[in-house]
């Protein structure tokens, strides 16, 4: 049997990624020139690693392509905000459109990629990120369901474990679903995963944990790609 080195990189000489490092690792995989929507919260920070010279064009669902970085000082304009309702800037070549057009371009499959946060992702790529379902919780979905089914690729950015240590990569989601079989990749503090639609999730890279230890801490079948 020939020795084929599996295509995984294990960084066991360091700890897991910090939040900013997670965003940087995800940004590395966004193709030049892609049309990208970043979800509110941590996914928005991916933009900090994709300057205008990256050629990536940002879509914000409240009606703009060509969104620039956060606005500060005199550049703050109350008429120019992102989906998280923070002031942003406009890059040369930007365009504005109304909400129905904004979601038509998303739902029509014209957006290359979106980055979303998640409570849970299942082995088959189901996403749960809008509602905890807890009594008294006020449900709020925003554009998450539209993004999850509309973007050509869905990348999730999340911590791998909850604050109480439960893995968020699960066999079946227990939280209410956002969309079925929509997630392509999951970027976490301990590892990056690729969901292939098969029985197993591919692990691409790990930080602060070996592949074998990761397998013991996550209750979904993990494997590595063979080149």
């Amino acid at each position, binding site marked *: 049997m020939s020795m084929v080195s599996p295509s995984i990189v294990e960084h066991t000489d360091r700890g897991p990624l910090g939040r900013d490092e997670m965003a940087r690792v995800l940004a590395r995989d966004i193709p030049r020139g892609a049309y990208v929507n970043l979800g509110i919260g941590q996914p928005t920070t991916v933009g900090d690693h994709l300057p205008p010279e990256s050629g990536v064009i940002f879509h914000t669902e409240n009606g703009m392509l060509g969104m620039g970085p956060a606005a500060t000082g005199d550049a703050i304009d109350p008429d120019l905000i992102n989906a998280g309702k923070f002031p942003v800037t406009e890059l040369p070549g930007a365009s504005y459109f109304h909400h*129905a057009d904004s979601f038509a371009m998303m739902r029509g499959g014209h957006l290359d990629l979106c980055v979303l946060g998640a409570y849970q992702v299942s082995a088959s790529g189901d996403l749960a990120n809008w509602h905890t379902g807890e009594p008294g919780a006020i449900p709020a979905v925003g554009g998450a*369901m539209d993004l999850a089914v509309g973007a050509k690729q869905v990348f999730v950015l999340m911590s791998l474990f909850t604050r109480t240590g439960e893995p968020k990569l699960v066999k079946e989601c227990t939280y209410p679903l956002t969309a079925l079989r929509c997630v392509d990749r999951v970027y976490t503090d301990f590892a990056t995963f690729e969901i292939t639609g098969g029985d197993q999730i591919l692990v691409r890279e790990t930080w602060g944990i070996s592949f074998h230890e990761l397998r013991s801490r996550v209750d979904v079948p993990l494997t590595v790609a063979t080149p």
Partner: protein
Amino acid sequence: MTLLCTSVDEAVSGIADGSTVLVGGFGTTGMPFDLIYALIRQGARDLTVVSNNAGNGDTGLAALLAAGRVSKVVCSFPRQTDSWVFDELYRSGKIELEVVPQGNLAERMRAAGAGIGGFYTRTGAGTLLAEGKETREIDGRTYVLERPIAADVALISAHTADTLGNLVYRKTARNFNPVMATAATTTIVQVQHLVEPGALDPEAVVTPGIYVDRIVQVSS
């Protein structure tokens, strides 16, 4: 025919109790604050409000909710750091909530404005928000039937209007305003600038005046 109003109070006159009211804006950006305050003074109650959010802070839509005039909110994202007025009403059972995915919210109003009786969308398929709705397999994928949202009144905000009701907006303050303008029996617009016909570039008009019933100029 577009009616030019001399005050916001004139602009909102005649809105009946029990009306469905579309309220433009995304958060507070593009929200028609002056029309909302006029509606509070006008006194209509038992309103169903359709808007992306359920009010921010104590101003605008939140003030209408706080005044007890709204019995139901249809929106995509009620819960925010500054949605305390809605949160309190909801938790005490004083207001009904229908959560709609943001794209469905926009498209359902677009459908109403375009005379479309419904549309099939993949958004929400297999989730709580599609429960009880008709579904259909199209080319191997599951789609959910969504129905139009038509309203009695739309309260919207634009940057500039001409006296025929043609509208242009500014940056992301456009958001839901143009689609809401098409979906109501009576569309009422507050604008910062009012100009004569011919002053707007016809190529740049976003909302043609046919959708606009009443205009009032407010200070910016």
